[in-house]
């Protein structure tokens, strides 16, 4: 079996449609929408298109769970026992079990909301974080950045379930959230153990985690304001082993990403307006 699989080689059946993140970034409608008031990004029953936006996000969570399963699975196989101790692989195997269950729960939640597998496209940039050839960097990318994002996503979905009075969504998200806290904790513990005598490698791993975190903040997706659809779940992140300093740093990174997205939208809108008026070069 091949080691170090690239994201283009992930197996999917005919229901899945893959999209590239650039397709959305270069869609001229994106800048127009960013300049409009489409209501609070935070999930709520009174925001416009609440049901469709929830369904779309639920589908995104589902494909994210598949990629998390694939990422943890690859870590069990890609490295020999010198690079990644057997106990670490056991933890990753347990995580595969959890992620498989999350996939099944997410499919059922999709049914509950009225969507189906493949109704929306899949972007595989989550799996890209799981392709690092250094197991420590990969662990930081997957178990601290990606699974940290999962904590934020599940916490936001749980709040939405509670606010909308949907007991099924609230209950399911709460159970998955508990697993994600464990996954991040495993990442934090293994990072400490594997880099105990190599502070330089630890710093490289944390830098890689910050890079992945920055990608997940893209366009103000995550933050602590109403305009961020996914809210930073500080309480659960603390349980998972993130320090206050790390949380403050991530919140600042998220604020910068939101501001950058706003500025880019303004520039793109201005450019489109000039173009529509026949100007520009």
């Amino acid at each position, binding site marked *: 079996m091949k080691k170090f699989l690239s994201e283009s080689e992930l197996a999917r059946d005919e229901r899945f*449609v893959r*999209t590239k993140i650039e*397709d*959305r970034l270069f*869609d*001229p*409608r994106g800048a*127009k*929408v960013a300049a*409009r*008031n*489409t*209501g*609070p990004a935070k999930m709520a*029953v*009174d*925001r*416009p*298109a*609440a*049901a*469709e*936006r929830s*369904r*779309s996000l639920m589908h995104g969570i589902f494909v994210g769970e598949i990629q998390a399963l694939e990422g943890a699975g690859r870590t069990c196989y890609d490295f020999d026992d010198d690079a990644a101790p057997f106990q670490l692989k056991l933890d990753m195997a347990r995580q595969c079990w959890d992620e498989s269950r999350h996939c099944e729960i997410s499919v059922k939640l999709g*049914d*509950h*909301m*009225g*969507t189906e597998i*493949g*109704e*929306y*496209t899949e972007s595989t940039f989550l799996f890209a974080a799981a392709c690092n050839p250094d197991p420590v960097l990969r662990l930081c990318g997957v178990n601290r950045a990606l699974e940290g994002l999962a904590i934020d996503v599940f916490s936001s979905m749980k709040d939405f379930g509670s606010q*909308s*009075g*949907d*007991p*099924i969504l609230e209950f399911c998200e709460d159970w998955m959230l508990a697993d994600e806290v464990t996954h991040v904790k495993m990442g934090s513990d293994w990072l400490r153990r594997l880099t105990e005598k190599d502070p330089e490698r630890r710093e490289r791993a944390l830098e890689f985690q910050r890079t992945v975190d920055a990608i997940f903040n893209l366009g103000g997706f995550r933050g602590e304001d109403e305009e961020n659809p996914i809210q930073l779940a500080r309480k659960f992140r603390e349980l998972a082993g993130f320090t206050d300093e790390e949380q403050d740093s991530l919140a600042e990174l998220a604020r910068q990403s939101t501001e950058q997205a706003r500025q880019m939208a303004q520039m793109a809108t201005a450019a489109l307006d000039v173009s*529509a008026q026949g100007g520009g070069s």
Partner: protein
Amino acid sequence: VSRVTVTPDPFTLIAYDAKEIAAIVEDCAALVGVDPGVDIGVAVDEELFAPLVGTTADVVDGRVEIWISGGNLENTRQPRTFAPEQARRDLTIALLRAKDRLSDDFAAAPDDGRLSRGERAAWDVYAVGRAARLGAPVRRQAQLYEFRLQHGFTDVADAAFDRLWQAASITWEGIREICKETGAADRPDSKIPVDLLRRK
């Protein structure tokens, strides 16, 4: 056949064809039984994409005025491409609501921009149920979820949903009664306008 106008024509941000949309609207209007003497205007908001979906269906001076998000017409499996079957479904539903407005049964109904979310969700179920019986490829579970978000995840709400879905005829007063029954009428008003997506 109703006289149909679709704007914008041409589309500039996305490759939708106004003539193709107009032809679909003509078919749907005939299917739901809109009086052929009634003119129909359809404004597609081409800036919006899925999942930012939404429609409004009003009658102004005897003319049907439909506003629809470009996201309603977009193939979610292939973004930026037109989805004719989905367009047919959503325009059929909008035209059923417009036809309601042309009847005495809904004469007292406020414009779509002034409906409560509960009223709109209930009216939509009544329209989507009829669209299903006309052969439109609707998604019952998706509609139930939308209804539950505004009327509650309760047995009372689900029973009301079933009645609305199966109803061959219902009035504006009937819609309001259902909102009282499920408790949707008692929900506090939101500061977010129900037709926010339509406002630029």
